[in-house]
């Protein structure tokens, strides 16, 4: 992650602005852009392939890896037209096309064209459509990356207390501890708990926004995707 | 143009037209000049008074009612004077006079500029 990220409090300083996807590709940083795309989209693509094409874990991984390798070689970003669709949709369509071609080729090799369904394990079973699952994983991965950025930033800037409070309250699975409970546990006023949580949440939002900016074509797509993410 | 002037003009014109319809009765043709003058004068009075009323009260219904009443009253006076000089024509004079008064009353309500309110401070 770019170390030059000065996250402030109410004074409102934010991470240095990453460039958008097309800006990165246009200025010869396509490798950086690809890494951003990989970090965000590897899991959603993998899940999509597993469900859409009923692949087992290993085959889905191979196809995912093969897709991204193929995309790098074929000047993938240059062919993206933001006027037609957001990058997320474009990538999913390219995945679908790639995996369908690979799937068809594999079947032709095996039994002269008959479709073959391989056994799937429980992880692939879902009632959602492949497209919905892709979008769900995209959202999840954005938040995961944002959380990693937040954790790293808190470690770098000595804000472990803030992260601990945030982790206990907002990342807790079951009955959440109350603000007063947290205040007692860390021996700080309740208003400080409120302030730390507010800081952590807006910082997380800022990191997620930057991750999103690096995988969208420009301001308009960024705002559309933000609206989609936080609808 | 204020409402009194509107009433005056329409009163004279409609009164004259009403008087002119006497031409359809041949026996009145020798004195039609006098009828025209009298009817116009009657219409003028009805119009002036209706216009004055319209400046005070802004109501189409009341304007028609007052105009009708004035038209009837002055038509009665004319018919009364006419009756002294011969055969009475109360119905032929009062009924049309009543309707013409209603028309003048209506027109003074709808047309003309209303009275401008005077400011209290001098």
């Amino acid at each position: 992650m770019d170390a030059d990220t000065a996250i402030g409090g109410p004074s409102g300083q934010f991470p240095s602005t990453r460039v958008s996807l097309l800006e990165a590709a246009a200025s010869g940083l396509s490798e950086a852009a690809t890494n951003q795309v990989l970090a965000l989209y590897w899991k959603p693509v993998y899940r999509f392939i597993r469900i859409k094409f009923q692949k087992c874990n290993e085959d889905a991984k191979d196809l995912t890896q093969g897709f991204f390798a193929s995309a790098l070689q074929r000047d993938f970003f240059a062919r993206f037209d933001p006027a037609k669709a957001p990058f997320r949709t474009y990538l999913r369509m390219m995945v679908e096309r790639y995996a369908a071609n690979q799937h068809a080729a594999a079947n032709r090799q095996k039994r002269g064209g008959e479709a073959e369904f391989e056994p799937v394990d429980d992880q692939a079973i879902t009632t959602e459509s492949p497209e919905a699952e892709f979008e769900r994983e995209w959202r999840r991965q954005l938040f995961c990356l944002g959380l990693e950025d937040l954790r790293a930033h808190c470690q770098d800037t000595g804000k472990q207390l803030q992260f601990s409070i945030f982790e206990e309250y907002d990342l807790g699975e079951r009955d959440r501890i109350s603000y007063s409970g947290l205040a007692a546990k860390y021996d700080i006023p309740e208003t400080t708990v409120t302030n730390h949580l507010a800081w952590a949440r807006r910082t997380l939002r800022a990191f997620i926004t930057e991750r999103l900016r690096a995988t969208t074509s420009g301001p308009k797509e960024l705002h559309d995707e933000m609206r989609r993410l936080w609808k | 143009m204020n409402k009194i002037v509107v009433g005056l003009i329409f009163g004279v014109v409609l009164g004259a037209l009403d008087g002119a319809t006497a031409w359809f009765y041949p026996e009145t043709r020798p004195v039609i000049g006098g009828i025209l003058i009298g009817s116009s004068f009657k219409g003028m009075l009805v119009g002036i008074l209706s216009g004055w009323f319209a400046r005070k009260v802004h109501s189409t219904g009341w304007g028609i009612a007052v105009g009708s009443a004035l038209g009837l009253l002055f038509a009665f006076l004319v018919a009364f004077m006419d009756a002294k000089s011969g055969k009475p024509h109360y119905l032929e004079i009062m009924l049309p006079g009543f309707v013409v008064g209603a028309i003048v009353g209506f027109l003074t309500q709808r047309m003309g500029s209303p009275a401008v309110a005077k400011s209290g401070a001098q």
Partner: protein
Amino acid sequence: MEVSDSVLEHLCQVTALPDLTGTRYELEAEIGRGGMGVVYAARDRELDRRVALKVLEVPLSGEAQLISRLEHPGIVPIFESGTLADGRSFYAMKLVGGARLDQYAAGEHTLSESLRVIRRVGEALAFAHSRGVIHRDLKPQNIMIGEFGEVYVMDWGVEAVAGTAGFRAPEATLDKLSDIYSLGALLKFLLSSPAAPALAAVGQKAMNSDPRARYTSLTALLADIDRFEQGQAVEAWSEPVWHRVKRFAVRNAVLLWLLVAYTFVKFLLFFWRKS
């Protein structure tokens, strides 16, 4: 780091909420989603009153500053604008009770009431145009009818994100004539069918696909609506003779009846006299 579905849902919610640290407001609830942001009800701690907070996803533009200085009974007053701690821009404005126009229109309303709403919207738009501000996204969802019947036009200066079908003018660059188109569409939206031919013609002229064929100003459009309400001929419609006669008769019904009565009385007396 992995997150479960429930944690993900929670994080989405808490990161979506505006961070009001450093402001005088306390968040209450989300009340709507507009063109480029979300509207929340909030409490102003200093003045102890409820306000509407619109949190924008884009930075405030120069036009936004202009809009905040518009003072008109039909434009929701903006109390404050600024930047939140999380970097998002916001407006604090009057919290309008009542119903949106699309909800209001679902109820029963007389033609006179509908035209009153159009007139109020048109007056607010005309005022804004005189100050160089164009609405660009006029539609029923952006108009509020307050508890006392007051009409507010909201969401100024934001170009329609997706374009609300039927209300956005067809031209690519939106200007004052596009607002006229949208007002015509609103008129059409509020009119029951079949509408009076004169009013339908007013709407059609405002919604002409050629901007040059529309009304040249909102004042001209509103003047035509006034003429319609007074029983006069409207500029947008060259009415047939029979309709002109009918309109004259309706406007002057009392006078015509009095003239009929006079004629009747005269004829009655004439024939009675003859007999």
